[in-house]
């Protein structure tokens, strides 16, 4: 069966690798969409330079009779977008436009959305592990987490309007790996890493290969729904800082964002209230639904995934520009 998959956000690292991974299957035609062309051309895909905030996306989808959409276009830091308001625009308005286009595409059968576990928020009233149906105890109030929660809301709305489309939302724990660059990897790259006095949060990570594996599985699977994706196991923040061989500087909670921003003058790391809450209280995910329903088992545990990041930073590690296509 020949399929046509539309992938948004292909000009960024993970989106590009996802598109290439899907294109490796000869039965799948991949259309990649982004506002800027990718730095390195993605082999085997048709790139369409389009803004998902623009209705032109509907035309592209209709003409190509797209049957699967992989939405990876939600961005996590204002830095990437050039400002918080642009970021919100791309994330929320972009998703609304994309969903509007999806609704007008009769051939569409599957929608896969890359979301984040940040939608659960973080705080002292949280259970040790979140399952998919749990409501957040501390609703995220800002930034990427809030955008993602709104995106998920619109996606649920779309699912109600088009019951014939199988909708899969994947909530990833922070994605790390040898080449993945996010606000959190920037945080662990600071010369001294600040942490909150008297707290040692539990963190979970997803290896970049596992993130792609889970998305790929969602494209191929018949199952739908919302799934947590994270490497098994837990790391404490203090352990993670030691693994990347950084010095930890302990800061009282009220001064944490100020000190953090002072240590990171270029603003690559994220010291927004949401991020600070996460770095104070941490979060855990129950991933049994992904295992049992989606039949997805990560290759890397949380410690192993983070070790991949730590190893890529040690002297002598291969820092080459090759993109390993899994």
């Amino acid at each position, binding site marked *: 069966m020949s399929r046509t998959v539309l992938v948004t956000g292909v000009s960024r690292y993970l989106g590009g690798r996802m598109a290439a991974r899907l294109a490796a299957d000869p039965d799948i035609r991949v259309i990649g969409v982004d506002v800027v062309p990718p730095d390195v051309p993605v082999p085997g895909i048709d790139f369409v330079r389009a803004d998902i905030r623009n209705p032109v996306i509907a035309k592209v989808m209709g003409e190509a009779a797209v049957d699967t959409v992989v939405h990876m276009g939600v961005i996590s830091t204002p830095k990437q977008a050039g400002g918080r308001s642009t970021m919100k625009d791309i994330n929320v308005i972009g998703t609304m436009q994309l969903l509007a286009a999806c609704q007008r595409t009769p051939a569409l059968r599957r929608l896969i959305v890359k979301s984040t576990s940040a939608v659960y928020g973080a705080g002292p009233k949280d259970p040790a592990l979140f399952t998919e149906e749990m409501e957040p105890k501390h609703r995220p109030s800002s930034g990427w987490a809030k955008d993602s929660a709104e995106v998920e809301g619109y996606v649920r709305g779309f699912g109600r309007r088009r019951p014939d489309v199988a909708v899969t939302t994947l909530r990833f724990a922070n994605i790390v790996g040898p080449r993945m660059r996010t606000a959190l990897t920037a945080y662990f790259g600071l010369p001294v890493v600040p942490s909150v006095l008297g707290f040692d949060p539990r963190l979970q990570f997803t290896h970049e290969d596992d993130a792609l594996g889970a998305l790929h599985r969602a494209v191929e699977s018949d199952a739908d729904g919302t799934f947590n994706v994270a490497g098994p196991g837990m790391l404490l923040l203090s352990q993670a800082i030691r693994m990347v061989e950084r010095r930890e500087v302990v800061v009282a909670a009220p001064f944490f964002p100020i000190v953090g921003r002072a240590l990171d003058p270029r603003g690559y790391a994220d010291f927004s209230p949401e991020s600070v809450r996460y770095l104070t209280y*941490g979060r855990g995910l129950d991933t*049994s639904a992904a295992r049992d329903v989606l039949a997805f088992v990560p290759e890397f545990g949380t410690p192993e995934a983070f070790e991949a990041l730590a190893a890529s930073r040690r002297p002598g590690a291969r820092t080459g520009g090759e993109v390993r296509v899994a």
Partner: protein
Amino acid sequence: MPDADVIPLVPDPEESGPSGSRTAHDGPSKAARLIGNTGPQPAPSRARSISARAADRRASGPSAQDAADARPAPEPPRPGSAPAVPDPGPDGIWSDPEIAALDESFWEFVQRRMAGDYRVDDFGFDPELTDRVLLALVRPLYRSWFRVEVSGLENVPSDAGALVVANHSGVIALDSLMTQVALHDEHPAHRHLRMLGANLVFQTPFIGELARKAGHTLACHPDAERLLSAGELVGVWPEGFKGIGKPFSQRYKLQRFGRGGFVTAALRTGAPIIPTAIVGAEETYPMIGNAKSLARVLGLPYFPVTPTFPWLGPMGMLPLPSKWFIHFGEPIPTDDYDEGAADDPMVVFNLTDEVREQIQQSLYRLLVARPSVFG
């Protein structure tokens, strides 16, 4: 686990410290088995896993060659090592109570800890830190200060989940700490007690961090049921702040037992409830007053005034050396109820009352039997 670092039951200051003697044994070290066990291993071309680094560092004596061979490919399956691996279970919860007793020197232990090379479970429980540091710190209080006497340990299962429900007293929750030491040191299976705490605990700096590392988690249904179904021993103090913050005149009078959430959790998982009575904790800090307005300013549930605190400053924080008795009562089974019993408020209320009544009765029995407060 006989090969583990069993702490002697007789007080012996020389051996109870964190640097107590280790037993050498053949085969792969517990550490190697412990670490090689969590999740899949990355391919050799990728970074060496922390387990491989740990194995290298620990390699010494006759097993050095073995570990050196292991260097290029992390964790090759070694003969005889597979079946003995302590499995963290499907929920990632450690089941081996002695998991932390590793055969390495104290200095190696410190170095490995400093490198971040250890594992915590899904709740943030750090069995190694708990066994070798945290319990060792409170053990003198348990042995020499309160001289705790424990009875009814045969009522606590060795390998299954159970819910320990006890009375709460003594201004700060020393009674829960002592129960944890009792079950770890005196129970033949050296069980870790996983307590359920208020969210105030987890939002307080240091206390929240230590509580998680010592194996405790938030008192909520998902966590309680997850621990119980994984076969863990779970501890609840349903009186909560009403229990530890009650005036001295109310001593040994059980307060209201919350909403009976613990009973629901036990019914859902079929875990037995072990009513537990603790005598002695009430006299550690006789609370003769409560500075309510000060408590409100500090955001605390109460602010204790005792004969010594706050008058003597830090000296007033020293607990009185009362003699303690902990009795684990006969288990109340919960697995013979109907399917929907957990959602039947009447069943829950009745069972809550039964547990409360049993604890109150054994409190009276212990009180009558004790010779004097400071024994």
